[in-house]
Structure formats: C-alpha cells, structure tokens
C-alpha cells in the first residue's frame, strides 16, 4: 500500500469547501435567533428530541471514536465493541430513566450547578474547574487528529490544518452557540453515516460477510466478545471482571451519566420526557456504530499489510484514513474526508460549547462577576468560546507528545469522571449524603486515582496492558470515593429534606406524568434498547 499514491481531485476539494460554507452559514442564520444567554448556552430549551438525540451521540463521535475505535478494532478485534454494547448502552439507559428527571427537573443549567444545589458551593467549584480543564484537553485531541489526517492524505501543513479547523469551529459556535453546535452535530451525524458506511459494505462484499472476514483475520479470538474473557488472556488483556467493573460500570457510567458535554444536549430538549428520550434515541444508532468504526478496523488489519508497524504513516490510528484512501475514488474520497472532518469538528464543538457554559455560569458568574446583565453573560459566552478554542490549539500541540491518545483519555477519565459518578450515585439516591462528604469524597477519589497512577509508573502495580490499568484504576477510584463519602456522611450534617426537593430520589416533587404514545415512553424505548444489546452480545459471543 503506497500512501503517496492517494490522489485528491478538484471534486474532493469542492465537496470539502461546500461543507465548510454550509457549516458557517448555519451559524450565521442562527445568530439572529440567539438573543439571550439562555439561547446561547441551552438553545432556549426548544429542540425536539430526535435532534438532541442525534447531537447527543455526535458530540461524542469525535476523533477518538472514528480514528480511535478503528485503531482499537485493528489492535484488539471485535472486543472493541465492548466500548459500545457494554461501555455505553447500559449507562445511557440508566441516565435516561433514573437520572434525567433530576437533571432536567431541577432546572439546572449545568452539571456543576446541580452539585451546588444538591451539595454546596465548594463541590461545584471543584467539579467546574476539573471539567473545564478536561474539556479543553479533549478538544485539543480532535484538532490534533484532524491535522494528522490532513497531513497524511492531503499533504497539508500541520500548523495550517490546525488553524483552519479551529477557525471554522470558532465561527459557527461563536455565532449561534449551542443551537448552532447541535444543528451541525446532526448534519455531521448523517455525513459520517453516508461517508463511512460504504467502506463496511464494500468490505463485507469483498470477504463475503462476517464469516468470510473472520476466516481472513490472523487471530480467531478477534471475532469474539466474551468467549476468551474468562481470563486476561485475550486480545485486550482484561478479564470479564475488569471489563464489567472498569468499563461497563465505572468508566461508562462516569462518562455518560455525569459528563456535561453529553448532558448539555439533553438539557436543550423541549420537555422532560424529550430530555429522557434523548439518550435513548441516541442509543439506537450507537448500538450499530461498531459497523462504522470497529468493522473498518478489522478490514484495515486484513487489507493493509504492515498496519501498526510504525507510529507514523502506518500507525493503527491511521487505519480509517488509509482505508478511505485505498477504497474510495475521487468524489467519494471527498465525502469520506468531509465525514472525518465533520466528526472532529463536532467532537471539538461539543467540548467548546460545554466549556463556555461551565466557564460562564459556574465560574465567571459565580465567582468573578456576579450581578451583570444577561447581555454581558452572552458576550462572556462568546469570549469564552474564543478563549476555549485558543487554549485547544495549545493543547493540540501538547497531545502530539503523547504516544496513545486513547489510553491518555481513559487516564484523564479515571482521575475525574470515575470518582464523580460515585458522588452522583450517592447524591441522587441516598438523601443522607452530606454536602461536605461529597466534597471530601470527590477529592479523596481523585487523589486515590492520581496516587494509584503514580504507583503504577513507579512499578508498585503492574497490568497486562495500559488499558487494563485504566480500567482497574477507575474501579479503585470509584470505590474510594464511594466509601469515603458514606463514611464522612456519618458524622457531618446532611441537607434538610426541604432543600432537596426535585434533586434526590425519595424527596422529588411528584408530577403527574403526561400520557404519551407507547413509542414516546422512555421505559418502552429503554427495554427495546437493552434487548437489542443483549442479542448482539449473544450473536458475537
């Protein structure tokens, strides 16, 4: 496979250019409708659930997913689908059914704001700061990934591609805020499907279906999800217990149930049932995503000899762009590249819109400038957008120094999201959880995680793979935060029940649920999603 033989034609450039024009035009049209800070940060609570649902997964469908999951597919085989069927779907269902009523019902504008209402100001500040740091680090990953693809396929200069990508995202998020970001995410969702699905279809044609592909794979264990998970002796190096506790429970619930990046999309929905449906509507395409991401990874493993033999042009991370290059002629190549570009931009815009909200509401308005006009906060939101993107450019260069983006990201999650999920679980479902216990529990959880990481580097703990280490570290951090919060709650004062209405299980305001058609009821959708996931786990056992 000769990478330099990929030829980009005028038609491909035209398609990419048209896409850029559309994206900015959407921001421009929406600017006229963005008059209050509520419009800018929460899309004015008026978006239908199918739109928020698709934005919910698109915001997450960034570089990590398109490049990282394909890379993992080539490295670990179909076990990578655990990131979807074990590591996403159950948590998305849990969020919809059990947690969304508290998020949407309490009328909070952000996840840190919920922590303030349920616990106290310090817990909110702790979370807001760690979240702000995390989001700008993540959006840098997307910029870096985009630049590396453009360098590989188009021969663009790394610095130039980072700047071009950053300016486009800046233009549309600054103009139209969250609405613009959500609209572009939905557009990007469809582009990704149309741009990447033909790869899997052509691949399946070539190998004669899954069975034929399985025969062509170098290792038969690559086609099984659970068959080899009895011990750590499988492609991923993690046994079933590590998978279920680390990925299936702590990391996935920590991400999907507490990360404001995704929750923000659901909060933009027009009603509480619509907010609850958001993660469930997102779950349907999410179940099928391994076809778009993991499958190409398996195809790349067979079709690109020497994949993974170096860390540059043939690294696993380049599995997807390399496949685009060998499979697509001019024309579709433009669409495929646009799809990848779209995924990086939606991943980045998701981070930036979450960052500007947390910065403006939870840090700026709370601690720096309290009683300013709404127009002032709207202005601050736009400034924060620009600031977030400029910092992302900086973090993009930081990311270049790390060997594996995916492992690095899971490491960050194990520090912040894993313990945070314990805080939320206790806060939402145990009214005795006291404000100071939440604060110290969170700090102890994060501290334990960082300490565990330092001891792993030092060699005190060792794991078969970096990923296994991240899974176990997350579990340990979660348990530490969980136990510490319970213990400290025993001798600190809980919040009076009168202040917990709508924030905690058992003291929520009981509102009569509106009668909805069966296909609009969250519980019905949840059962269908879970059933489909179980079937897939059995089929690929």
């Amino acid at each position, binding site marked *: 496979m000769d990478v330099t033989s990929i030829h980009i034609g005028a038609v491909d450039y035209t398609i990419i250019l048209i896409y850029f024009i559309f994206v900015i035009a959407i921001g421009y049209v929406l600017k006229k409708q963005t008059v209050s800070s509520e419009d800018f940060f929460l899309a004015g609570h008026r978006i239908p659930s199918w739109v928020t649902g698709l934005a919910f997964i698109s915001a997450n469908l960034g570089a990590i997913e398109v490049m990282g999951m394909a890379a993992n597919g080539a490295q670990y085989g179909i076990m990578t689908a655990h990131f979807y069927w074990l590591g996403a779907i159950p948590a998305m269902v849990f969020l919809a059914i059990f947690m969304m009523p508290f998020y949407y019902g309490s009328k909070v504008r952000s996840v840190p704001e919920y922590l303030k209402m349920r616990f106290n100001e310090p817990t909110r500040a702790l979370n807001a700061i760690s979240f702000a740091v995390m989001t700008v680090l993540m959006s840098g990953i997307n910029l870096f990934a985009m630049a590396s693809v453009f360098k590989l396929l188009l021969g663009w200069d790394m610095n130039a591609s980072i700047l071009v990508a950053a300016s486009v995202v800046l233009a549309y998020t600054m103009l139209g805020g969250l609405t613009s970001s959500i609209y572009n995410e*939905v557009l990007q969702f469809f582009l990704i499907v149309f741009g990447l699905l033909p790869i899997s279809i052509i691949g399946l*044609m070539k190998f004669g279906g899954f069975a034929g592909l399985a025969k062509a794979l170098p290792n038969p264990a690559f086609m099984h999800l659970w068959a080899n998970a009895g011990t750590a002796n499988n492609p991923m190096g993690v046994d079933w217990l590590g998978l279920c506790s680390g990925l299936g429970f702590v990391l996935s619930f920590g991400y999907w149930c507490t990360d404001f990046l995704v929750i923000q999309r659901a909060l933009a929905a027009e009603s509480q049932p619509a907010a609850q449906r958001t993660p469930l509507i997102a779950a349907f395409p999410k179940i099928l995503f391994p076809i778009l991401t993991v499958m190409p990874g398996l195809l790349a493993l067979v079709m690109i000899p020497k994949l993974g033999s170096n860390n540059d042009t043939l690294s696993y991370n380049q599995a997807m762009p390399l496949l685009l290059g060998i499979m697509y002629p001019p024309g579709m190549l433009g669409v495929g590249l646009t799809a990848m570009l779209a995924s990086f931009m939606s991943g980045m815009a998701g981070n930036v819109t979450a960052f500007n909200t947390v910065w403006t509401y939870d840090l700026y308005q709370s601690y720096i400038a309290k009683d300013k006009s709404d127009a002032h906060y709207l202005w601050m939101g736009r400034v924060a957008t620009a600031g977030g993107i400029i910092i992302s450019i900086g973090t993009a260069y930081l990311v270049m120094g790390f060997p594996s983006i995916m492992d690095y990201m899971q490491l960050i999650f194990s520090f912040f999201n894993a313990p945070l999920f314990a805080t939320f679980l206790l806060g939402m479902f145990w009214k005795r959880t006291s404000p100071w216990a939440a604060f110290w529990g969170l700090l102890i959880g994060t501290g334990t995680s960082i300490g565990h990481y330092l001891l792993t580097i030092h060699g005190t703990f060792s794991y078969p793979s970096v990923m296994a280490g991240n899974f176990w570290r997350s579990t340990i951090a979660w348990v530490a935060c969980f136990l510490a919060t319970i213990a400290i709650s025993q001798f600190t004062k809980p919040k009076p029940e009168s202040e917990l209405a709508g924030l905690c299980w058992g003291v929520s305001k009981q509102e009569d649920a509106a009668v909805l058609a069966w296909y609009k009821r969250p519980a019905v959708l949840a059962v269908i999603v879970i059933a489909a996931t179980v079937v897939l786990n059995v089929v690929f056992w």
Partner: protein
Amino acid sequence: MLDVRKPIGSLFVVIGLILTVYGIVQPQYTQVAIVATKEIVTLNIDLPCGASMLLFGALMLGLAFIDGRKAKTADSSDSH
C-alpha cells in the same frame, strides 16, 4: 426557529448532485477482488452513493416543507 432538516437536506442535495453527475460524466472504476470466488467486481462507487445522498437530501427537504406548511396553517388558525 430554523428547521434543522432544511440545511441538512440542502447540503445532501448539493453533494449528492455533484457525485451523481461526476459518476456519470467521469466514472471512476474501483476494482474489488472477491476473496471467496477470486472474481473481480468493478464498481462505480460515486454513482450509487451520490444517488442515495441526493434521495436522502430530497426526503429531508420534503419533510421540512410539509411540516412548515402544517405549522403555517396552525399559526393562522389560532393566531399565534
């Protein structure tokens, strides 16, 4: 509020048209070697992909148009 299906529909119609026309005027053949039978299949990928994008775009625009008209009649009846 801008109906999200309008920009999505328009973009897909434009890109779909470009691909379809390109696929007809300047067909780019990709050869796929079928592993089991060893036969070579020649595909003009741009054409079916372009046509399906065009169709999807038209569908989105159509739905937005129908709902837009519905909303208009509802608006004029209860003077929103």
